[in-house]
């Protein structure tokens, strides 16, 4: 789960061309690419899209090797489906793996170049309720991650992973139980501090984004990929 930590770091610390584009243009690009990946049945188109996405990842100064290592995870799950599709067609399994891989790259490109808070703020325009839960979960994730890492480190010294499997499960359960009770305490304190500060069911994002030429270029690139996939052929 360290990916979320690194993704957050990449999206907030880097200042490249793609990072400085608006959330709106990057979301449009992401949706265009995602729909073209989902609708196409062309291996050549998918290979071309993967090349474009890898180039954008490189331009955005993101660690390509690490991202390709992360890609093993969705590719592994795609291969479970690919194995299940072997009997029906020889092309379909390869399409499934390439689709899983390319959509993973598009998701990683979006979240590694756009801070979570900006995406949540954008989503909160559609549902403030969900936006609040997303924002708080994201915030608490880092609070708890630190707590869990410290506890795991100290418990490892005292034999967290024992040779006795049942004892290991008991240790893990006690660890989670401990973290859970601590997290409930933190959440109660957090609620009280929200009330003191006059929380009225909405979080605000004050940073304003300005739409520029680079945003137009990103949107046109996305639309171009979508149009190209239409030329190559769509199937619902």
């Amino acid at each position: 789960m360290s990916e979320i930590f690194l993704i957050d770091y990449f999206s907030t610390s880097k200042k490249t061309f793609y990072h400085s584009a608006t959330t709106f243009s990057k979301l449009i690009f992401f949706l265009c690419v995602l729909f073209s990946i989902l609708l196409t049945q062309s291996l050549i188109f998918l290979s071309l899209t993967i090349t474009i996405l890898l180039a954008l990842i490189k331009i955005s100064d993101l660690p390509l090797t690490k991202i390709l290592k992360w890609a093993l995870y969705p590719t592994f799950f795609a291969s479970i489906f690919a194995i299940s599709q072997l009997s029906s067609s020889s092309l379909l399994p390869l399409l499934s793996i390439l689709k899983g891989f390319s959509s993973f790259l598009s998701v990683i490109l979006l979240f590694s170049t756009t801070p979570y808070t900006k995406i949540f703020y954008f989503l909160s325009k559609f549902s403030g309720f969900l936006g609040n839960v997303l924002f708080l979960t994201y915030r608490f994730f880092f609070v708890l991650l630190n707590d869990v890492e410290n506890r795991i480190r100290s418990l490892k010294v005292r034999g967290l992973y024992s040779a006795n499997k049942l004892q290991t499960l008991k240790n893990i359960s006690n660890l989670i139980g401990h973290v859970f009770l601590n997290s409930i305490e933190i959440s109660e304190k957090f609620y009280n501090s929200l009330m003191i500060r006059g929380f009225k069911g909405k979080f605000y994002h004050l940073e304003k984004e300005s739409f520029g030429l680079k945003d137009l270029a990103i949107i046109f690139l996305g639309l171009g990929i979508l149009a190209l996939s239409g030329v190559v052929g769509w199937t619902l």
Partner: protein
Amino acid sequence: MHIHIPDGVLPVWLWLSGYGISLGLLLLLSFKLKNDWKSLPKVSMISALMLISMSIPLGIPTHINLSTLSGILLGPYWSLVSSFVVNLLLASMGHGGITIVGLNTIVVWSEALASYFLFSFFKKLMKNYFVISSISSFIALTLSIGLVVSIVAISNVNPAEFLHHHVHQTKERISVITFASIVTPIGLYGAFIESIITGMIVSYIRRTKPNLLP
């Protein structure tokens, strides 16, 4: 059971239906829950804990996700919100496709929902919280394995039609038997481990802060 189905495997109508159902339910719930600010930090904290628990290695090709525990602790309504949020955040790092968030929400919520009702039912029959939460958790997780296999089964469209518009054959696009034979043993093993852990956590909460349990 939480299967990370990647994008592009399931047909568009199926994942769109998944989004339709889960977002429709969330919309209805948002009217009911939007003023329940007091639960907001607790739900978010449990969602964050679910995300973190998935990173604790168990030495097997599966991980715990605490969905059944969230069902017992959050109840049927808030556990849906938590399931959606967790799946959306997981998809943001490639753990499951972004198009499958709706379907995965339904799968994870079904675990939470089943464990909540089973836990409430068994609680009337016996007093051992480890046993009732473990049994509730195992049954709920086993049911969700069935749900995942059912989703894959109903996703089957004609492969020839999928590739060439005008050919009609009756062959399966995804072999449900092959898929089920890969997923079921791993899923059942994971369900067994998770139900024991859930039982132990519930016992721990029962000993230290019983008022948190329903």
